[in-house]
Every structure is written in C-alpha cells, then in structure tokens.
C-alpha cells in the first residue's frame, strides 16, 4: 500500500527529472523514463565499454528512497550479480558503493537505495526505518535528488573492474 498519493510522487519527480535528463544528455547515457510505472532506466558504460543497465523505481518517493538495481543489459531482466559492476578495490572513495548482500546477492549500498535497508532485505538494520534515508551523517555518499543519485552510481561504474559474474 502506498504512503504517498501518486500525484505527490509525480510532483516531486517533475522537479527532479529535468536535471536528471540533462545530466544524462551531457554524459550521453540513454535515459528511459516510464511515467506510468514510475520507473527510470539508464544505460551506463564501464571501462572497456562494458554495458550496464541501471533501474530505479520511485513508489512513495521522496518519503521513501527509490529502489536502485542493475538489470541484464540485453533483456532488462533481474539476474542478480552478473548485472552488477564490481567496485574498484581499493575504492578511490574510501569504501565501495556496490557490495555483496541484499536480496539479489549484490546491492548498491547507500542511504538513497531502498534495497540497502533491512526492511527491504538489505544489510542495514542499523539505519532504522526507510523514512530515515535523508538523515545520515559522516563522510559517506549523500544524494537526495534523482540526478545526484545517478551521478554517484555512474561514477562507481566508470572505474569498476568488470562484472560481479559472467552474464548467463
């Protein structure tokens, strides 16, 4: 059951999406927004032009964070680890954004990803309820607009070291 009226979600996304779309155009990423499904898909390239497909869904955003995951870049199916890039090790940003864990075996581990919270099968029970997602401190990554989330995830992909596992 949704917490927010669909109109409120659309209203917020209408604020966020122009920036996100402009960011994607500047970086030549394919940007596919499905308004009815509240679903964004973005094509990203890792080193050696390895293709990745990022998906975000936005039910109850911004009261709750989006769900971000990687899909099979050929079929847009959920395939778990093979869809995900491997964060550089050691991370140039201190700690990796993409780690093992969660319901898919790999998760984008940031407060702006619903799937990182225990409530959604993620590893972070210490963050409390999903609604806490914007209340974080410290040196960890922070993003509260769609475009900023995309930019941070894209940065992680840009210096990744290959897939978590071979595509099936």
């Amino acid at each position: 059951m949704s917490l927010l009226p669909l109109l409120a979600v659309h209203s917020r996304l209408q604020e966020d999406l122009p920036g996100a779309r402009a960011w994607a155009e500047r970086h030549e990423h394919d940007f596919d927004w499905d308004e009815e499904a509240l679903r964004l898909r973005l094509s990203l390239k890792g080193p050696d032009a390895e293709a990745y497909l990022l998906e975000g869904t936005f039910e109850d955003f911004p009261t709750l964070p989006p769900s971000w995951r990687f899909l099979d870049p050929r079929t847009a199916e959920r395939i778990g680890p093979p869809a995900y890039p491997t964060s550089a090790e050691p991370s140039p940003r201190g700690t990796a954004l993409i780690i093992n864990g969660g319901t898919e075996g790999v998760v984008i581990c940031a407060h702006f990803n619903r799937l990182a919270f225990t409530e959604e099968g993620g590893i972070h029970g210490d963050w409390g309820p999903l609604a806490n997602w914007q209340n974080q401190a410290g040196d960890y990554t922070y993003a509260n607009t769609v475009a900023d989330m995309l930019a941070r995830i894209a940065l992680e992909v840009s210096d990744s070291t290959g897939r978590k596992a071979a595509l099936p």
Partner: protein
Amino acid sequence: MNQSASQKGGHGKELKVTVFAPRSPEGKKFKWNEHMTVGAAADEAAKEFGYAQGTPTLAKHGSALDRDKELTTAGVRDGDKLELVDIGGGV
C-alpha cells in the same frame, strides 16, 4: 559570474570555468584562482547549486579530481566545463 573570496588579491592566474551539477539543467560560471584547491572550489560551487551535505568534488571528462590538489595541478584549465559529483564512499 561567481568570484570566490580567495580570488580577490590572490597571486596566480584566473581560471574561468563553467560548472554543471547533476541536479540542475543549467551550468554556472565561476572565476577561480589557479592555486585554489579543488575541494574549496567544489565546496563553493556546491553551495551555489544548493547542496547542503555530501563530499563534493569537480570532475573533468568523467574523472573525479583530487580535492586536495590545486586546480591547475589537478588539470583544470581556463574555459573548462566541469561537473560536480559527490565522492563520499558507500556505506
């Protein structure tokens, strides 16, 4: 054009750059001293774009620049187009 406090009366060349932030469709122009650090410049740009939290840096051609380096040492040149990006780690 935004001009930082460190620009006024400082030694070194002036760099005029355009900075884009993910959240904004439009870029903003800045005028910085070449000896300013990337981190200080990024913090200033982030504030102009309304960022209140995070660890911003500037990126050039998709590569995040070292916050501790001076702008020219990091590869920033007059006329560059740069992008703000958060470089906080994963949690």
